[in-house]
């Protein structure tokens, strides 16, 4: 595990909280959702939570290709 390179943005912190509510772990921005114990169904649950929290459509394909908080935060930023 690498150290957290930079401080999380507000969006990343909110995403970290959502991941923690589902996976019970404090994720780093570049941790893979699936390495932290998430399954396909957990990812679906997380996407529903993220869409409700931010009011944007999550790019599912981009997330599953790079399943990190950093990727999610970027797509959320682009969708707003």
């Amino acid at each position: 595990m690498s150290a957290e390179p930079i401080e999380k943005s507000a969006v990343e912190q909110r995403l970290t909280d959502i991941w923690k509510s589902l996976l019970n772990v404090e994720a780093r921005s570049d941790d893979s959702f699936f390495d932290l114990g998430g399954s396909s169904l957990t990812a679906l649950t997380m996407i529903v939570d993220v869409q409700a929290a931010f009011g944007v459509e999550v790019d599912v394909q981009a997330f599953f290709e790079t399943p990190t908080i950093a990727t999610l935060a970027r797509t959320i930023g682009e969708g707003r």
Partner: protein
Amino acid sequence: MNELTAAAMDELWLESHDGVALRVYRSAPDPAKPALLVVLPATTTVALIGAAVDRLARSFNVITWETRLVHDPGAADDEATAMSLRANVGDLESVFRYFELSRAYLIGYCTGAPVALHAAAQHPGWFPKLALVAGSYFTQPGECELTQHERDILKIMPHIAADEKNAAAVSKTFVYLRDSGKLQGDAFALATYRPFYEGRSLHRLGLLVEDLIRHGSRPVAREIAVPALVAAGRDDTQTHYASSVLLGSELRAAELYLDDGDHYAFCRGEALLMARIAGFFGEDADG
């Protein structure tokens, strides 16, 4: 054996209590064998338990059916009523009456377990013994340890049940995952995703699971006086064995069978589990 096997069963259709068509299967009838009803998980077709049926049919006349309206696109006037726990218990009653049974042994597997529990509570004279295998009892966080899968189901199913559009959106993602080879799991696990690929099926599944969550399983378990076998596996990543232990503690006459199996030990017809179930019903698993 990690692949699905076709069960040697006859298929027939019957009209249930409210007019919904049920796809029913039964093994070759033998008047010398007792009847055994198996309540399938709502997510799967009979193919999932082919190996178990082949083994159990050596000692029992096995009868099972697929959960209404999830695997076949029939019509329903009021989907919430049609997909209720009550309607699913009604299907079990319809099957029991169709075959003119006076008594039958009863197995509930996964989400079939709460349906079997409610049926056993309502008809104590019909079912002299009840076996619950890897049951999905929808216990809540705080009641006992849950798997990640159980926590996910508790969270996403009410969302899927709330609106068919929600189900369609989730379904679209599952289709993407299937088509891109990103879905995880062996043949049994992947088979349970079948209703997730179609919005209407998934919405109906969500309505049923939401109703199962609403009712819970512990209160009805306290009403059951007949002997029950509660079987669970320590390696089950779908339903945590702790919920089976908890459920068993609510039953008045329960035997707990705990092994190192996973959620699909029943589907694979694993010999020790099959022998335990058949022995509990007073029969020899090898006929």
